[in-house]
């Protein structure tokens, strides 16, 4: 089971996961082989890999992109994500 919160915020509310650029991806599967959190899933057909479980992705981790030869993986901006987390924490704290 993956963690359900990150920094006290429900994980599903944090938009952090890789995006695959299919114009670059060679389906070498290095990212899938590397990621221990089952973020990716292999498929039959033309598109052989998808981001099937984005909320399994560890927030702020971009390690899979460093295994990607064709540079086909991108992530949201860290500071933008951080702002979202902070604002979600503030909202939660403001609630009675």
């Amino acid at each position: 089971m993956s963690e359900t919160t990150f920094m006290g915020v429900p994980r599903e509310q944090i938009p952090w996961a890789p995006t695959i650029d299919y114009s670059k991806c060679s389906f070498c599967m290095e990212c899938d082989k590397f990621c221990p959190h089952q973020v990716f899933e292999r498929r039959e057909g033309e598109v052989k890999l998808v981001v099937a479980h984005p909320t399994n992705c560890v927030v702020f981790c971009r390690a899979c992109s460093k295994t990607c030869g064709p540079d086909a993986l991108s992530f949201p901006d860290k500071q933008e994500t951080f702002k979202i987390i902070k604002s979600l924490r503030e909202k939660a704290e403001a609630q009675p």
Partner: protein
Amino acid sequence: MRRYALLPCNGLDKAAGPLTRELALSLMAAGAGEIICPVLSRRAPARYAKLASELPVFAIDGCATRCASRLAGDLRWKVERRLQIAEEAKAAAIALEDSLIPGPVGLALCQKLATTLLADEEAKAPAPAAGGTEADFTTPVEYASFTHDKFLFRVPKEGYFFNENDCWVRVSGNRARVGISDYMQQNLSDLLFCTPAEVGTKIEQFGEAATLESTKAVYELVSPVSGKVVAVNTEAVDNPEIVNQDPYERGWIVELELSDFASERDLLLDGEQYLNLVKKKVAEFRP
């Protein structure tokens, strides 16, 4: 000038591959070392064993697959310097030609990289000293620990703060040292490379403070605090295994001049909270 055993990936899969050869040739022509043929060294490693032991190995990779670095790792050659063409092109906002035949843009980048590397070697001053001026990181550390199967995980009881990305910060005055936790170093297993951010770099909280590469994975050190890099641990760069051996003390990675620790502290875990998180992670870990 320092001379290297130049190991290009010499790949033919992407445009950056052939450029590693061009860069290695430029460096060799300028007297910066001798080239190791990656294909022959795979087939007949003994051919280059002497060279790789006599000169520091400089791995020149084309892309993130890092074939040259991995080849050196396979052959147990210690890499002292590394460069990745695709990364350099990205950093310089250069779009390389989409061709295996090196074009003017790629060749110009190689030339520029060679010039910079050579100038850098010429001007190389002693590496930045470890340790700060007014900071004191020598206080003895007391650890809490727990075991799971045959693994023992340690976490300092006091004086350290953590983020949920398994990185720690130890603060002294307006200085802080940053590193990775015992749990993370065990996850990564034997570290081969430690590449910290350069001295002078400004890092945001949760920004990248270093890249660590092990036999298993590449890992980004997510800085628990913001600040300016004032020192890097050259011992960890030269011998990354000390991060495995002593992740909380000798194995620190960068030292920062803090910018806003008082407010950033609220977003971090103390030792006890982090120990509980590690227990949860270990329980849920699936290799």
